[in-house]
C-alpha cells in the first residue's frame, strides 16, 4: 500500500466514531463601520508602534514627497507596474540633474538578479490593501508590487499605499485578496526578540520601512 493510501486509511480508522462536523459560529467582526479618517489614524498609530516611518500626503504631492524621501539614494528598483507618475519628480539618470538616481525596473519577463537587487539602496512598491487594526500592509504580487524578492532583498522598502485601500479588520482585507496569489503581509520592519526578549528592528528583511499614504 502506498504511504498515501495507508495514511488516509489510518485517518479513517481513527475517525470510525464519525465525529460530528460542527457549525462554525462566526460572531467575530467581519466588517466594521470606522470612518476612513479613523482607519487612517489607526493605521498610522500601529505602523509607528512597529517603528515604521509613516508619511501621509495628498495624492498630488506624492511625487515630490517621494523624491524628498529618496534624496540620499543613488539607485532604486521599482516593479514594472508602478504608477510612473509617482516617479515623475525624481532626478533621473541621464537627465543631467545633480544627484541623479538610477531607477531599475523589475518585471517577470526581465527580472533583476539577486546581486543587482542587493546593490540598490531602496525599493519602491505599491500595496494591495492594509489592515488598520493590526497595522498590516499586504502585497499580492500585483503589477504595482512585483515579484516577492524585490521587496525583500533591498535594505529599505518604501511602500506607497492609497488611503482608499485601508480597511479596519483582517477579514475585510482578506476578502479583497486572491488566496492563490503569492502574498507577503508586512507589519513593520523585520524584527527579532530572540535575545533576552529585547526587540531589535531589522534582521534579514528590509531594516527600514517607509510607508507613504496617499489621501
Amino acid at each position, binding site marked *: 500500500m502506498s504511504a498515501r493510501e495507508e495514511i488516509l486509511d489510518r485517518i479513517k480508522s481513527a475517525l470510525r466514531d464519525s465525529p460530528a462536523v460542527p457549525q462554525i459560529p462566526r460572531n467575530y467582526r467581519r466588517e466594521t463601520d470606522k470612518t476612513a479618517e479613523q482607519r487612517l489614524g489607526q493605521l498610522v498609530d*500601529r505602523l509607528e508602534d512597529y517603528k515604521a516611518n509613516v508619511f501621509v500626503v495628498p495624492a498630488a504631492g506624492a511625487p515630490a514627497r517621494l523624491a524628498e524621501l529618496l534624496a540620499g539614494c543613488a539607485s532604486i528598483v521599482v516593479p514594472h507596474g508602478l504608477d510612473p507618475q509617482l516617479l515623475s519628480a525624481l532626478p533621473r539618470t541621464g537627465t543631467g540633474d545633480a544627484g541623479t538616481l538610477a531607477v531599475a525596473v523589475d518585471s517577470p519577463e526581465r527580472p533583476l538578479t539577486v546581486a543587482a537587487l542587493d546593490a540598490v539602496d531602496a525599493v519602491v512598491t505599491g500595496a494591495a490593501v492594509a489592515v488598520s487594526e493590526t497595522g498590516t500592509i499586504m502585497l499580492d504580487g500585483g503589477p504595482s508590487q512585483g515579484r516577492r524578492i524585490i521587496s525583500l532583498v533591498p535594505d529599505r522598502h518604501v511602500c506607497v499605499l492609497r488611503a482608499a485601500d485601508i480597511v479596519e479588520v483582517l477579514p475585510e482585507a482578506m476578502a479583497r485578496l486572491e488566496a492563490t496569489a503569492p502574498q507577503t503581509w508586512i507589519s513593520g520592519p*523585520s524584527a527579532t526578540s*530572540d535575545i533576552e526578549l529585547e526587540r531589535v528592528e531589522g534582521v534579514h528583511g528590509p531594516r527600514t520601512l517607509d510607508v507613504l499614504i496617499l489621501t
Partner: protein
Amino acid sequence: MSNTFLGMPTLPVFGRGNLNATEPFPQAAHRELGNAQLRANLGHATHTIRDKRLKVVAELPDWEDMRDAGSAIKNATMAQLPALLEQFEANFTARGGTIHWARDAQEANEIATALIRETGETEVVKVKSMATQEIGLNEYLEGQGISALETDLAELIVQLDHDKPSHILVPAIHKNRSQIREIFLREMEDVDPALGNEPARLAETARRHLRKKFLSAKVAVSGANFGLADTGTLAVVESEGNGRMCLTLPETLITVMGIEKLLPSWSDLEVFMQLLPRSSTGERMNPYTSLWTGTTPGDGPQNVHLVLLDNGRTAALADEMGRTALNCIRCSACMNVCPVYERTGGHAYGSTYPGPIGAILSPLMTGIKSEENNSLPYASSLCGACFDACPVKINIPEILVHLRGEDVDSKRAKAKVPTQTDLLMKGAEWAFSAGSRLNLLEKGLPAGRLAAGRAKVIKKLPGIGGKWTQSRDIPAPPSQSFRQWWAKEHGAPNAAAPGTTGEGTISEGGRP
C-alpha cells in the same frame, strides 16, 4: 470521496523521532531546576510574554468569539480530514506543487534527502519548523552529508552551540546575551573580537553571517503554520525575514507539514491569523506572513514540494478523548502561563513539544506505553491556566487526567498483580464506604502524630507514598478527627456528623 471507513480498524501506529523524552520527567526536571540562569531567564520571558498577550487580547471585543470559531473550525477539520487532505492535494498539485506522504519520521527524512540529492546540493537553508525538529531532519541530513543551516536567530544560536531549543517560540531563551556573544565568537568565522553583547549588535552579526548564504542558497526547507484545503495555499508566519528569504530566493523549496495543519478554507485563515500572533508573541500581528500556492511563474521557487507527515498524528486522532490536542496551532501561550514549565523549562520535557501541550501531545503521538513519556501527563498541577489561555480552547487538564488514567490502566495490565496504587485505592474504597470503618481508621491518628515526632512533620512515607514526600513534608495529623470532635462536643456516642448519616452516605435532605 466518502469519509466512512469500511475496512478493518487498524491499530494506532505511533510516531518516532524526537517525540520521546530520554529520561522520565521528574528526573529531568530535578536537574533543570538546579540551573539558576535558566530559571531566571524563563521566569522573565514567560512573564513578559504573558503580560503582552493579555494586553493585546484585551484590545479585541470579539476575542472569545474568535476562540469559539477557531475551536469549531479545527474540530470540523479533524472530522473531515481525509476529504480535506485530498482536496488540498488536488489544489496544490494543480498549481505546480508536488505532494509526498510520509508515514513516519524516517520516511519523511528519506523523502527530503532524496529531493535534496536530486538538486545536487549539499547545503540547505532552513526556516524554524517544529515538524522538522520532531523528525530530527537536521541530524539525519548530516549523516547523509548534507548540512542544514538554521536561519532563525534563536535556532541559529542553539544550532551553533550544539544545544536543544527550550521554548517553541523563543528557543534560545535559556541563554543570555553574554553567552550568545561567546557562541558567536567561538562558532562563526570572521567575527570581530571586539563584538559587544548588545542584542542589536548580535542580531547584526547574525544578519551578516547568513546574508551570503541566503543570496546563494539553491534549496530551502521549511515548515508551515497552515495549509488551506480549498485553495492549496500554505502559510508561514515569522518575524525576522529569514522565512521570506528561504521561501522566495532558492530554486527548490521543500516544506514538511503535519497532516493536522489544514484549515478547510481561505476564509478560516482570517480567524487564525488573528488568534496566532496575539497568543504567541503578544503582537497585534507578526512582522511577516508569507503565503504561496504551488508555484508562481517568475516569482519564487519553481521546484516546490510538500511532505505531509503522519508520525503518530493518526494515533492521537484515534483517541476520542485526546484528539483535540491536534487542534494546537503551536502558539506557546500554554507554556507561558504554566507554573510547571516556568520552573523546569522546555528541556525537562525531552520531546520536541514541551509544556502543557507537550505533556499531552507527546504521549498521544508515541503511545502512553512509551516509558519515557508516561510521566509527562503528571507534569501538571491541573490548575487550568493553559486551558484559559489556549486560543483554540484545547481542554488540556481534561486530557491530562484522561492520559493519567490510561497510564494507570496500561501499567496495571502489564503488572498482572495489583500495584501499590491499586491496593491503596481498594483500601480507600473499603474505608470510605461506611462511617463505622472510617471511625475505626481514625483511631490510628494519634499514632501518626507520634510518627511525626516533635517537629510535627512527617518527612518520609513508605512505598509509593515516598514519591509524595520526596519534595514535601506532611504536617502531623491532628490528635482527633472532626467526627471524633463532633461526637465529643455533641454528646451522643457515634452521633452522625452534619451532612452524613451513620452509614457515611451524604444525606440529600440536609442540603438547601
